[in-house]
Each structure stands twice: as C-alpha cells, then as structure tokens.
C-alpha cells in the first residue's frame, strides 16, 4: 500500500517498532521477569463466595508447608495510611487490601501466602481452606434496585439529549424499538497483573504493569503514607492493559504489602482465574433503542437507554449511551443510563468503554430501522450524517467519515449487496452476509509532560513517563521527537516507562500519543529554541542575527530560513557555547478554547462479511474492511496494527466474549482462557484497514487523534448486521452464539 500522510523525515513513516528487537529476542523484561536478590514469592488466596465474610483460614496448615515464610491476612496485614475505600480522586477505585474480613465479590483477595518458592506459596494458599459466613447473592442485570447514577464513565453526564423525543416519535412515520443485551467481559491482558516490590526503609522500588506511572505512584504514596518521590515505578514493557492497568489494582498492592510484611523483595503474580474479579471488567448492559424516522430514513427521534450493573461498593457505570450524543443527526435525542448494584467486582474502563457496548446496539438498531424502511444500511447512515455534533451543535474539528464510508464500500464491494437477507451462499452452500457499522471514538487529551535534550555529540534525548502497551509509544514518540529536534531517528534516545521521568499521563482513552506526542513536540521545539538562542546571539555563528523565527532544524543542523546555505551543526553551536547540552520541557494538553468550540472525534466505517453454516449455526468472520480517519498518522505501519487489534476486539465482542456467572453463587464459571473465549488466529482470516486522509488543525498542533479504541466500535455492529444478513435472524443477545441460529 502506498503510504500516505508523510509529514516529516520521521513522522508519517512506516517504521518498524524500535522495541521490536527486544520483544522478538526475549530481551524485553516485563514486570514479573524481575528477580531482585532475596526474592520471595507471594500467591493470593481469593474468596469462593461473593458476599459475606471470612470466618476461618487455616493459617497453621499453610505455615506448616515447607518453604512458607508468612501468611498475610487481615490479622497481620500492614495497616494503610489511608483507607483503600477512600475516594479522594475520581480515579481512586475502592480496593480490597486485607483491611477487614469482609467479602464483596467472588475472587476477592482474602489472604496472601509468601514462600521461598512459587510452588510452596501456591500450595500454601490452597491449604488455607477458608470458611465463610455467606449471604445470598445477586449478580443478574436489573435484579437489584435500579437507580440513576450521579455520573457515568469518567464523570460524564448520566442523561443528555436535545429536542423533544415524544414529539420526534410522534412525527415519525416508522418506529422501531429493540432491546440488546451485551455480556460481561474481562480484559484478560495476556500479562497478568503482578508486582515485584522491594522496600528500602520507606522507599519503594516497584516493577508493575501500569498504563499510568504517575497515577500509580500517587495512589501508592497515599496508601502507604510516603511521599510520591519515594516510589520508583518501572514499567518499560507492558503486556497489554486495555484499561485494566489504568489504575493500580488490589493484587499489585498486596504484593507491595507482602514485601513490607516480610522485609524482603516479593513477587506476586495474579493467577489467570484470579483476574475475573479484582482487576475490573466491562459490565453487562441491556440497552433499549427507540428510533423514529420519516419514510426517507431521516431520524426524527433517537432514544438510547442503558441499564447496567456496578458493584455493591463502588460506582463505575458503563457509559453505553455516550456515542449517541455524537454520532447521528436526529430531530430529537435522548440518552439515559440506569444502574443496579450486584455482588461483583467493580467494573472499570475496558477498551472503548461505553462506545464498544453502545455501538453494537446502535448499529444493530439502525439496520433494523433500515429494514423497515427498505433502505440500504449505508444509505440510512448517510441520510443521518451529522454535519455538526448533534446535541452540542458544535462543528467537528475534522470529520472524514463520508470518505471512510466511500473508500470502505468501494474496497469491500458493498454496492452489490442484496437488500434482503439470506440471499448469498458460497460454493459450499454456507450462508454469506454483509454488514456495516460506523466507528467513532472521541479525540481526547490528558495532561503530560516531556523533556527534550540536545547533546553535543549530535544526539537527542526524549524523556517522559509514558508507557508502551503495544500501541507503539517506543516508536512514535521517538518519531515525533526526531522531527521536533531535527535529527534522524537513529540519533534519538527515548526513555519512557519509568516514574522518575516527567509525568507522561495515561496510556488510555486513545489519548496517549496525542498527549505525550504533543508534550514531546513542545519539548523538542523548546530545546531547538534554546539552541537557536545560543547561535543567533553568537557573532561567530553563521546564524548570528537570524532571530528565533528565522532558523529551521533538520538533519542535525540549524539553518537560516531565508538562506539554508548558512547553517551549522548542533554540536558546533554547543561546543562554541561551552555547553554539553541544551534541554527544555514541554507540556501536552488540550486547548480548552478549541475544545469548547469544536467537537473532536475520530471516525470510521467497518464492513464485515460472515459465513454461517445454515444448519449448524457456526459463524465465521471471513472478511473485514475498516476505513478510519483519525487525523495525522504518525506511523501507518503501527496504526494499521492498532486498527486490526481493535477490529479483532470487535469480532470478540460480537461473537465470543461472555463471562458466565452462576446466579446462585456469583462465581464466574468460565474464568479461564479455555472457556472464556477470545478469538484465535483462525477466527480472523482476512483484514484490511484503510487509512483515510484527514487533516485536523484543531485537536492539537500535530493534528493527532487516537486510534487505540475506535476499531472495536463499528466492527461488532457490522458483524451482528452481517449475521442477520446471512441468516435473516436478528440476534439481540451479544455475543451471538450458534444456538440462536438453529431456528
């Protein structure tokens, strides 16, 4: 594919991953790969019941097991400086850290066994044989008292809309109402939550996977009552996060507490089955869509109501309705959320929180309406194309969604799609269906900081406590730094993944590259300005008198803008000034004025082909084409991988992931990777991602929108719609399972 959007010597180039060599040779060290001297191993015991309290642990049996050093229970667990239930900032989730004997959900940590070997710690934990006083549990959607939460997601309004829904519905010539269920999903990054903790007095060195080093540092400082600067968190490589490592979780902190208890370094690695509870999940939802439209398909009303679950003890609410505030124009829009409490671990952000679960419902509903109106799914989407953001009426900072629809349709061959379902078969008689979904995700920014240093040896150093969880920060931040410093990328040293570096914000919410990238760009420009300051004030420099605005940096040299022949290497400037380096800091954050004026979102269109066995119901996605517009693309090679990854998550949402809880016990019955299905290689036969050109002058100076989450949105709905198109059966229980298609 010809690579488009080449914006600089490094930016826009399809470079391979700079961290790739370390990852393909095994040299990349993830948190659990560290083994400080004197390391002991810790294993958690977790609760079998979902509500009640622990009445007995056979600590003696565990302690008697050869190699066991200590058993940490509420009796002896280090007391914390702050209650782990204190919500002193919006991102502080309540944590179960052995401060009492209560049980609030199944798989909650109830003890930690520390031993000389992993084998001994594991068996020690098994020997605890807990007894409980258990209470009746409630884990089903809507089983508890339903209420309207204060906020949803990360502090968004619970209900929002515009226009008069009742009037919109009354004015409609066609109406549909449908209810869609989406299942509880668990992040299941392949790297389990872990910590390798080492105390030195009141100083802590910690290897732990985190998407936000400084947030982790701050949280831990509060809990342990020590200054944040006493905590050194290192996370150069992160084995997937998807939101579950955005905020430090209980198992990670229990490892630190265990190290404190025994006065030795401790490694605690969560077992896979223990990841179904204490480290977050995407809550199940039940979404009711009421759509009204005129005969030509123009929406007169879009009413999107979400019912979801949260835990008994905390308040995260899956914001499934948010995307209906941004996506389709409609005469009137209502988005509302309600929630009930259940005896489950607290749900948290999971890749495209809200948008993922909301998108599959909205895209399905729109196709149900299109069927009533005998309209092509693409046509009804174009008919309701939002020229401005629907509720706020703000213009979009950029929106190339029309081009996404068109380029995707062309590539996919959408035009030959029969309107009616069950019209296509392949040569083997398998039913074939085609579906479409619109992708959308906000282009947000967090706050971050970076430092750029130009060194006399002609190299540049970029530093920020950002993380690479696979999205490519190791590469793209170097690309941005290289162009900002006017250096070839092989002369850029990048340092990330260490909390001693400037605050890099959060690798989440599709904001990482925009935020850290802006900070790096600003820092680099600051360093160049400082260098230029030296040169233009130096009579010996060919740049003398050029003024800051009058020089450009490229290939390790500063040159006069008006006369590029007059130039000088960075090293020469620094040497003459007697300096070994110049450095500058830069900030990355959104421009409040622009954010007030413009609606900022990435968009896309996903076309899916599925095949379904007409008798046996088994489904396979055979083709996915996604076309996405997300502003400036720093590295098309890696961005394509992000889109693919998101699209596979869409396959997973539509057809696979489904945590099954026994309603009697509240236990997750498929809490393992054999039966909690995520797609395998053979589930993903053919994919294509089209990078649609989009220039955005408002989101940030580099024009970057995030790409990490948008791929899920659109895809799941496209697949659900394709399954309908193949079979004529509309399944509203997501994931779609074969038993629904047996007829």
């Amino acid at each position, binding site marked *: *594919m010809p690579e488009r959007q080449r914006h600089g010597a490094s930016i826009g180039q399809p470079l*391979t*991953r700079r*961290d*790739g*060599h*370390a*990852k*393909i*040779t*095994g040299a990349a*060290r*993830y948190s*659990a*790969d560290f*083994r400080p001297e004197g390391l002991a*191993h810790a294993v958690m015991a977790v609760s079998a019941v979902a509500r009640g309290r622990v009445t007995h642990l056979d600590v003696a049996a565990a302690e008697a097991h050869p190699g066991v050093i200590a058993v940490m229970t509420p009796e002896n667990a280090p007391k914390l400086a702050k209650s782990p239930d204190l919500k002193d900032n919006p991102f502080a989730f309540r944590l179960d850290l052995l401060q009492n004997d209560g049980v609030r959900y199944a798989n909650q940590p109830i003890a930690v066994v520390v031993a000389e*070997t*992993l*084998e001994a710690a594991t*068996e020690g934990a098994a020997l605890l044989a807990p007894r409980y006083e258990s209470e009746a549990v409630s884990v089903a959607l809507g089983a508890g008292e339903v209420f309207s939460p204060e906020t949803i997601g990360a502090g968004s309004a619970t209900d929002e809309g515009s226009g008069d829904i009742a009037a919109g519905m009354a004015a409609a010539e066609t109406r549909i109402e449908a209810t869609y269920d989406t299942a509880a999903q668990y992040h299941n*990054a*392949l*790297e*389990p939550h872990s910590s390798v903790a080492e105390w030195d007095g009141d100083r802590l060195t910690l290897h732990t996977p985190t998407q936000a080093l400084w947030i982790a540092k701050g949280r831990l400082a509060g809990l342990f009552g020590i200054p944040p600067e006493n905590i050194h968190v290192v996370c150069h*490589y*992160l*084995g*997937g996060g*998807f939101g579950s490592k955005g905020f430090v979780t209980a198992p990670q902190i229990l490892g630190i507490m265990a190290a404190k208890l025994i006065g030795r370094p401790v490694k605690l*690695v969560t*077992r*896979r089955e223990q990841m179904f509870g204490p480290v977050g999940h995407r809550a199940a939802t039940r979404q009711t869509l009421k759509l009204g439209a005129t005969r030509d398909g123009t929406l007169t009303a879009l009413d999107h109501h979400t019912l979801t679950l949260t835990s008994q003890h905390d308040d995260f609410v899956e914001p499934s309705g948010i995307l209906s505030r941004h996506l389709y124009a409609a005469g009137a829009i209502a988005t509302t959320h309600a929630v009930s409490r259940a005896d489950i671990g607290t749900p948290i952000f999971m890749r495209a929180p809200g948008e993922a679960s909301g998108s599959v419902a909205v895209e399905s509903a729109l196709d149900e309406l299109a069927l009533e109106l005998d309209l092509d799914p693409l046509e009804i989407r174009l008919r309701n194309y939002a020229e401005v953001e629907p509720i706020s009426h703000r213009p979009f900072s950029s929106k190339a969604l029309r081009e996404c629809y068109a380029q995707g349709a062309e*590539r996919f061959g959408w035009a030959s799609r029969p309107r009616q379902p069950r019209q296509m078969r392949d040569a083997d008689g398998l039913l074939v269906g085609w579906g479409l979904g619109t992708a959308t995700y906000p282009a947000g920014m967090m706050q971050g900081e970076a430092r750029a240093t130009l060194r006399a040896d002609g190299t540049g150093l970029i530093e920020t406590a950002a993380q690479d969880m*696979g999205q490519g920060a190791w590469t793209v931040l170097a690309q941005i730094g290289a162009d900002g410093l006017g250096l070839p990328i092989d002369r850029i040293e990048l340092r990330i993944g260490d909390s001693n570096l400037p605050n890099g914000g959060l690798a989440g919410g599709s904001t990482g590259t925009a935020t850290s990238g802006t900070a790096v760009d600003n820092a680099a420009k600051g360093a160049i300005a400082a260098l230029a300051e030296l040169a233009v004030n130096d009579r010996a420099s060919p740049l003398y008198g050029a003024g800051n605005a009058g020089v450009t940096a490229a290939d390790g040299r500063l040159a006069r803008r008006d006369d590029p022949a007059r130039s000088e290497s960075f090293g020469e400037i620094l040497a003459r000034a007697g300096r070994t380096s110049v450095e500058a800091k830069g900030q990355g954050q959104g421009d409040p004025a622009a954010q007030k004026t413009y609606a900022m979102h990435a968009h896309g269109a996903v076309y899916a082909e599925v095949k379904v066995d007409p008798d046996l119901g088994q489904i396979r996605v055979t083709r996915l084409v996604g076309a996405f517009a997300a502003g400036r693309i720093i590295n098309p*090679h*890696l961005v*394509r*991988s*992000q889109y*693919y*990854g998101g*699209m*596979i*998550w869409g396959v997973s949402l539509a057809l696979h992931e489904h945590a099954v809880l026994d309603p009697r016990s509240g236990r997750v019955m498929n809490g*393992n*990777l*054999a039966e909690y299905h*995520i*797609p*395998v*290689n*053979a589930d*993903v*036969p*053919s*994919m*294509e*991602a*089209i990078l649609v050109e989009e220039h955005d002058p408002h989101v940030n100076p580099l024009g970057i929108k995030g790409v990490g989450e948008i791929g899920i949105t659109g895809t799941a709905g496209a697949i659900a719609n394709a399954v309908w198109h193949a079979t004529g059966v509309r399944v509203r229980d997501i994931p779609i399972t074969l038993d629904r298609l047996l007829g």
Partner: protein
Amino acid sequence: MSFSITLTVNGAARSIVLEDARVTLLDLLRERLDLTGAKKGCDRGQCGACTVLIDGVRVNACLALAVSHDGASITTIEGLAEGDALHPVQAAFLEYDGFQCGFCTPGQILSAVGLIQEGQTGGDPERVREGMSGNLCRCGAYAGITQAVLAAHTAITGPDVLPGRQLAEDAA
C-alpha cells in the same frame, strides 16, 4: 526429596538440582535459570505464551514437569538467534509487525518455528492460521503473525511451496 536432572538449554548443558518435583519447565526457566523470555499467561495450557521447543518440538512449558524431561534439549526465545543474526521467524515478526505488546511474542515465535518444522502447512495461510491458533494474542496481531509465518516459511523452506493466497493487505 530433591532430583538431579540434566538439560541442554539453548545448546548449553545444564546440571540442575530440583528441590521440588512440582517445578514445571516454565517455572524452572523463569525462576531458576533466569530465562524469562517464555511467558506465563495462563499457566494451564490455554494461551501458548510459554511455548518452547523440547527436542525441537513445540510444547507448552507450563504443563511440562521439569523432572520428567531429564535429558531433554530445550530451546527458548533467548537461544533462537545465532549471535546477532535473527532467526527468519524473528525477522519476519519484526517486518510484518506480528506483535504489539510483545508478551505473547516469544511463544508465538517458538510456535511458528515448530509449526514450520512440522511441515504440515505447505505455506497455506489457512493451515498457518489453524496451526498458530494455540497462541492467543490479546492485542490482536493475528494478521501480521500470519503474514510473518508465511514469509518465514518461504525463507526457510524456499519458495517451492503451494502458492499462498494473496493477503488482502498486500494488495491494498
């Protein structure tokens, strides 16, 4: 009760005293031999992140008791490259971006080496996808993985194989 075993690990003979028969090959490598390339994703044979070669054959190290493999030759990701020269599978994973976070990557690469060695795919993308399905990738790098394995297959066995189906991305 302790057990003395010998293993050849990445070409080097190792005499190992196991203090405990419970030690899996994976935990032996990771916690005792400082070979942390093989990863523990599930510890139950359900993800493939721990894949290593035992006597040239790909297996899940998490379900193999070390004591039972006395005398075996083990290849881990750390022993795959010949000095600075990457194994063709490693090089292909880099070129085709067959990974994101990298956690499953050592297992994916060893699995691909084993798969090619098994000689059952004939360079057919569908057989490669099936053959690589024992290695979960939560980031969703499967498209790149398949391309990488196909490319490495050609590099190792020569182009004299069944013509692979052109992948969509190549044509894009």
